[in-house]
């Protein structure tokens, strides 16, 4: 059984990495022929870096838009970030100091994450405008993440699993030494759903993760009068 999971995670990691890389290459290669930053926009590269930082870390545009969605999604994403950072300890030994330091926060961040997801789900069900734009997959993603979060929190706070064995299993990946996964149902549910998430991410709306960095309305410098912006296919029009 452990080897099934080992294979599953090797496959999931490959799909995630290659799938994301394929999309990132596609985004990077696709030209942006015109300057279309949503203005007012930064007039320097460093200003753009700051704008993207505020967008990615603080969700600036969402904050401008609707406070409830902002609170729920920020709780979810920041919770997820801390939880993921805490999970680094299961893959490395010795554990890096910053990861040690966030351990207590990372544990409780699970609650913020679940609460945020629950808020987003409730909003999706009860606000007529958002219900209208929701496909089945939009609900399923929220449910998937909620179950991942709850199963994880269960193992942290209620029914502990043998984390030492789990760590041996995953660190074994690097050295191909492998270990045996504890056959706890909650752990298996948790890991299965995480693998599903990794497998589907590159084919889903979760592409907003790389997408935000490539969004021309956010990542372009506002300097069209000073600097001529011309992409290859547009240059060909000039030659003809």
């Amino acid at each position: 059984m452990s080897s099934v999971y080992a294979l599953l995670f090797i496959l999931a990691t490959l799909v995630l990495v290659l799938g994301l890389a394929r999309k990132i290459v596609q985004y990077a290669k696709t030209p942006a022929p015109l300057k279309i930053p949503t203005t007012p926009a930064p007039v320097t590269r460093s200003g753009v870096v700051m704008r993207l930082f505020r967008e990615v870390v603080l969700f600036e545009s969402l904050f401008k838009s609707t406070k409830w969605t902002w609170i729920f999604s920020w709780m979810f994403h920041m919770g997820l970030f801390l939880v993921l950072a805490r999970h680094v300890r299961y893959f490395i030994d010795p554990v890096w100091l910053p990861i040690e330091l966030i351990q207590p926060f990372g544990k409780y961040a699970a609650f913020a994450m679940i609460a945020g997801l629950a808020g987003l789900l409730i909003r999706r069900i009860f606000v007529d405008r958002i219900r209208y734009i929701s496909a089945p997959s939009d609900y399923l993603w929220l449910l998937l993440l909620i179950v991942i979060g709850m199963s994880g929190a269960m193992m942290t706070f209620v029914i502990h699993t043998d984390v030492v064995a789990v760590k041996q299993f995953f660190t074994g990946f690097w050295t191909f030494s492998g270990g045996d996964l504890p056959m706890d149902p909650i752990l298996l549910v948790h890991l299965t759903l995480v693998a599903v998430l990794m497998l589907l991410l590159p084919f889903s709306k979760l592409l907003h993760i790389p997408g935000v960095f490539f969004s021309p309305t956010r990542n372009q410098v506002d300097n069209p009068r000073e600097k001529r912006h011309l992409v290859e296919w547009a240059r060909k029009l000039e030659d003809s």
Partner: protein
Amino acid sequence: MAGAEFKTPELSEFIEVPKLVEGTMEHITCFVAKPDHQEALGFPGEKVENWKEVAIDKMGDLLSRYRSFQVFMDACVKCGSCTDKCHYFLGTQDPKNMPVGRQDLLRKVYRRYFTFAGKYFPKLVGAEDLTEEIIDDWYSYFHQCSQCRRCSVFCPYGIDTAEISMAAREILDSIGVGQKYCNEIIGKVHKIGNNLGLPGPAIENTLEGLEEDVYDETEVAVKYPLDVKGADILLVTPSADFFAEPHVDGLIGYGKVFHEAGVSWTLSTTASEAGNFGMFIGSYENMRRVSLRIRQAALELGVKRIVFGECGHAWRIAYSFLNTLAGPFDFLDPDYPVPQHICEYTLNEIEKGTLELDKSENDEMSITFHDSCNVARASRMGDKPGGQFEIPRKVIKAVVNNYHDMEWDTIHERTYCCGGGGGILTDDLMEVRVKGAKPRMSAFKNVMEEKGVTHLAAICAICKSQFTKVFPYYGMDMFQIVSVHQLVSNAIVMNRKTPPEEAPGYGEDDDEE
């Protein structure tokens, strides 16, 4: 065509988010372009037989040429942030007028033909086959978007529905289903030089008339020159400025400013249009062709600078795209940005102290300023971000005593579109225009009631035309919309007097006419 009968929305004190009512605007279809309008722009004259393949191929082509389109198709998480931001949704309650609702009309087809999930699990991700009904929906709802970009301000990924509606219109054009309004106008620019199809002699006549009017009023011979070689400044202004009210009062104002500043300037018959509807239909090629006329005119006339008149979408293309489409402008004076906005020019003169201004000339009015969407969210003035908000206001405040802004969440980057931008300013879309104006009308009405504002000043030809038409539906007077340079024109004191021998008509026999 749009039904002639519809109810003008009632204005409320606050801009409320309405309940969804599906299909309220389904019946909207604007006139379809005739074969000769289509072919003049390089599109098929009529709906092609294999429209489905052609449309999907075109979508693929655009996905590979526009990063915005590709990323925006993928990145939406359906968070709903944009759902209450579009003035057309707020005015019509139609969920397909929510930005994401509109985008999804295209996105569901994208998912079906271009994504793994949509190919194999269409129901799960809301992917759909391209059908005749979807084409009809595209035609209807992508002509209910004014490409104002308000949604893009609030999207956590910066998804801009304007980009998506441009792509949709380009796909529609590629299968031979174009919009008459836009495509006929672009054809006129290609052929004659401006949106209104005014030939050179007509412009010349108009300008002579203006010179006489201004002389009668001020006894100063302000020139409105046309095709003058060697002038310093080429002024490119929307053709509506040549005759429509209140646009023409703005043109009179530009002339007075140039006169007092003592510079030589000229208009051009071949570049007698600032607007560029090529953007509305998403066609880089057409947009470029229209832009090149300006480069050509600047070269032929040998000017040193290019200044744009009051026009919102024109300013977007001028500021953001002109250098790309028709640059480089290394033959112009490098000391000035290319191009400059007339408000940048005028404010600079005001700050230099060249202009004497008598604010009291505008005392019978109390002014508020409407930030035109494409100036506010798609361009800049001056050298600092947000200059597009500051500079026009500084110009206005220099020429009027009574000024009040509208509510903070309806101006600057959050400004509401007039309801007529992006290729919607046509009588066959009157219902869309009136309903889409609702949020702007609410904010204007509030500032009228609370601060005693009487007039709305704008720097966009489309806004001006739209408000002139729409104000009466909301119980307001069509003359409540004014040009910013109309206010300048009222206040400017003409100090550079004309010697009698330079007055128009001097030495001519009075009986001649």
